[in-house]
C-alpha cells in the first residue's frame, strides 16, 4: 500500500491532467469534426493537439496452481477474481519541431480471494499514474533528441525480445495489459534513409519496478538499424553501469508476399540472475549470483517465420534457445530447493522466514525464462467478417514439457465498443515452468474508445 499523501498527490496530478484534457477537448474535436477553420490559438490547438480515450471495464478469473512455488496460495496470495476499471487517455501535441505525448492512467479494482491465508477477503484498490510521457525535439531533419517515460520495444519476435537490454516483457502475452514505462533519454540520427543510429540510456526505472533487492541499473546502448528493400537488420551494443555488456541483434526478410522470416538474439555476460549452489545451509542449497563475474558470453537466439494464407490468416512459428536458462541438472536443483523452501514455509517455525525468502528468490530469479528451449505456434486472423480478430498461441517449453495456450479474441460492436477476451491455460506438472503459478486465467471485458 502506498502512503496516503503519495496516493493523494498522484490523484491530484491526474485530476489536473484531466482538467487540462477537458479544457483542450473541444479544440481537439474541431480537428476531425469541423470543416470551418477556427482562428488564432484555437486553430493552433486544433492543428497540434490530439487525443483519444479508452475505457476498459474488465474482470479476471484465475485459478492459482497448487505448486511448490505457491503452497496453498499462502505465499503469492493470488486473488481468484478481480474486477477492474481503467481509464487510458492518450494526449498528443505535435508541431514541426516538437512532439509531446502523455499517457496518464487511472485504475480502480476489487480483488477477491478464495484460496490460502486470505480466503474470503476482498480488497479495493485505486491507482493514478503517468505510465508514459515523451518530449521529442527535432534538432535537424535527421536528428532527434527525446526524453520521457517510454515502453521502448523493438524487434520482430513474439515470444520475447532478447535484443532489448532494457525491458524483459515485450507486452505480447496480453495486449490489454500495458507494459510499465521506463525513463529514457534518446538521440536518434538518420544519416540516410536506410540507416539509423540511436544512443539510448535508461535514466530512471520509472514505473517498471524490477522485483528483488537489486537497485536500478543504468544501461547505455548504441543501436544501429538498417532497412533495405525487402530486409532489415539491427545491432544493439549495450553496457550497464555495473560492467555487464551485451550485443543484441535482430533482422528480417520479406521472402515473398506471404512469407516472412526473422531472427533475434543476444550475446551477454555477467548475468545478475540467481542460480542454485548446494551448501550446508538448512535448506541444503541457496540462490546466488553465480555468474555475475563470468566474462563468458551466453548466447540467446530466436528464429521465426510466418506464412499468410490467401484466406488472410497468418501462421507464425518461433524457436528460441535461451542460453542463461537452467539445464536439467540445474533444474533438478532448483525444484529440489523450491520444494524444501515450500515445506519450511508451510511448516512455520524457525525456518519459515528462510523458506519465504527462498520462495521469493525462486519466483524472481532474474531469468526471462527458466529453461533453455522454447517453441511458439501462433495463428492470427484479423477482420473476420469485418468484425472479429482472433489469435491462438501455443508456447511450449521443450525441456520440461510444460505449455501455455493463449487465445485473444476481439469482437467489434460498432465504431466505439469492442468485446475482448484473453484466455490462458497452463499445462505441465507442478514442478514445471508453466505449471507453477496459474492453472488458468481468463480476462474478459469491453473497451470503449472515444
Amino acid at each position, binding site marked *: 500500500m502506498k502512503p496516503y499523501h503519495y496516493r493523494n498527490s498522484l490523484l491530484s496530478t491526474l485530476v489536473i491532467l484531466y482538467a487540462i484534457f477537458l479544457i483542450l477537448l473541444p479544440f481537439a474535436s474541431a480537428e476531425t469534426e469541423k470543416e470551418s477553420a477556427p482562428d488564432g490559438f484555437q486553430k493552433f490547438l486544433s492543428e497540434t493537439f490530439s487525443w483519444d480515450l*479508452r475505457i476498459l471495464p474488465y474482470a479476471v478469473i484465475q485459478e492459482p496452481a497448487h505448486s511448490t512455488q505457491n503452497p496453498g496460495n499462502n505465499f503469492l496470495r493470488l486473488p481468484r477474481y478481480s474486477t477492474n476499471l481503467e481509464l487510458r487517455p*492518450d494526449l*498528443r501535441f505535435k508541431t514541426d519541431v516538437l512532439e509531446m505525448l502523455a499517457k496518464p492512467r487511472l485504475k480502480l479494482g476489487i480483488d477477491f480471494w478464495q484460496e490460502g491465508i486470505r480466503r474470503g477477503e476482498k480488497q479495493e484498490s485505486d491507482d493514478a499514474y503517468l505510465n508514459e510521457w515523451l518530449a521529442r525535439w527535432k534538432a535537424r531533419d535527421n536528428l532527434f533528441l527525446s526524453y520521457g517515460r517510454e515502453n521502448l*520495444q523493438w524487434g520482430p519476435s513474439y515470444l520475447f525480445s532478447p535484443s532489448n537490454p532494457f525491458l524483459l516483457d515485450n507486452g505480447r502475452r496480453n*495486449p490489454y495489459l500495458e507494459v510499465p514505462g521506463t525513463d529514457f533519454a534518446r538521440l536518434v540520427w538518420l544519416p540516410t534513409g536506410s540507416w539509423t543510429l540511436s544512443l539510448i540510456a535508461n535514466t530512471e526505472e520509472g514505473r517498471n519496478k524490477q522485483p528483488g533487492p537489486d537497485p536500478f541499473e543504468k544501461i547505455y546502448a548504441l543501436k544501429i538499424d538498417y532497412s533495405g528493400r525487402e530486409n532489415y537488420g539491427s545491432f544493439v551494443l549495450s553496457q550497464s553501469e555495473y560492467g555487464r555488456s551485451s550485443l543484441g541483434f535482430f533482422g528480417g526478410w520479406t521472402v515473398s*508476399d506471404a512469407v516472412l522470416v*526473422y531472427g533475434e538474439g543476444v550475446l551477454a555476460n555477467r548475468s545478475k540472475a540467481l542460480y542454485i549452489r548446494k551448501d550446508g545451509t538448512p535448506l541444503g542449497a541457496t540462490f546466488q549470483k553465480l555468474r555475475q563475474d563470468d566474462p563468458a558470453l551466453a548466447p540467446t537466439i530466436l528464429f521465426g517465420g510466418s506464412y499468410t494464407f490467401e484466406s488472410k490468416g497468418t501462421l507464425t512459428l518461433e524457436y528460441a534457445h535461451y542460453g542463461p536458462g537452467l539445464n536439467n541438472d540445474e533444474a533438478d536443483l532448483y525444484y529440489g530447493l523450491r520444494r524444501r523452501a515450500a515445506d519450511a514455509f508451510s511448516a512455520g517455525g524457525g525456518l519459515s522466514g528462510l523458506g519465504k525468502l527462498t520462495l521469493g528468490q525462486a519466483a524472481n530469479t532474474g531469468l526471462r525464462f527458466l529453461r533453455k528451449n522454447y517453441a511458439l505456434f501462433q495463428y492470427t486472423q484479423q477482420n473476420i*467478417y*469485418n468484425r472479429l480478430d482472433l489469435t491462438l498461441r501455443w508456447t511450449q517449453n521443450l525441456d520440461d514439457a510444460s505449455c501455455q495456450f493463449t487465445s485473444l479474441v476481439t469482437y467489434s460492436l460498432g465504431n466505439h465498443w469492442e468485446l475482448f477476451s484473453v484466455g490462458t491455460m497452463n499445462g505441465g506438472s507442478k514442478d514445471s515452468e508453466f505449471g507453477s503459478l496459474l492453472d488458468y486465467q481468463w480476462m474478459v471485458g469491453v473497451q470503449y474508445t472515444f
Partner: protein
Amino acid sequence: MTPQEILAKADEARGNAEGIEWEIGIDSVEGGKEQHRTIRVSARSFNSLAEFLAPANVKGQKLLMLDRNMWFAKPGLSKAVPISPRQKLVGGAANGDIASTNYAGDYKVVQASEETVGGEKCHLFDLTAVDKRATYDRIKYWISKERLVGVKAEFYTVSGKMFKTATFEYKQSITIDDQPRPFISKMVITSAVLKEDITTMVYRKAVLKKIPDATFNLNLLTR
C-alpha cells in the same frame, strides 16, 4: 508519346514519387458486413505511413511500409509487429493501393491496344511487374486517350487468374508545373470471386510535398 510515357502521365494523377499526403475514406463490404475506415497517408516512392483516423476504435493504428518491409502498430499494442504484404488493409484494398502509384517504374508494357470504356477511347496496356516490389504481378490498365488518366484496371495473380477489378474517378485537381491536372478522387475495387465484395476508396485533401525520411522511421513511430 511512348506507352511508358503515357503510363507516367497517368501516374501523375494518382500520386507522386517525391511525396504526397492525402486522406482516404475506405468503405468495404465483405461477406455482407460493412466497414468504414478513414486513414491519412504520407507516401514517398516505395515507402508509406498510413495513420488510421476513424472510426474511434481503430484511431491511432499505424501501418508503416518500408519498401516490402511492413510494420503494424496500434495504441494498445506494446510494439510494432512485422506483417507480410499479403495482409490486407481493409476489405479488398491491398496495402499498396493506399500509396502513390508508380506503374511507370514498377511495370513494363508487354502489349498495347485500344478499347472504349464508358464511351471514352482508351489505351489498353498489359502490364507485368518489373520486380517483386510491385503490389501486383500483372495488370490490364485502361488509360483515357484524351485525359491521360487510368479509368479501369484488372488485377491478376501469377497463375493468370483475375482476382479483382477497379474503376477510377478524377474529380480533384492539383497543379503540376503551374498546370492544373485531374487528380484521383475515387477508386472502386470489386472482387472477381465474390462480386458483392466491394471496397470504395475516396481520396481527398491531397497535397504534393516532400516527405522526410523521419516519417518512415520505426524508431520515431509513436503509438
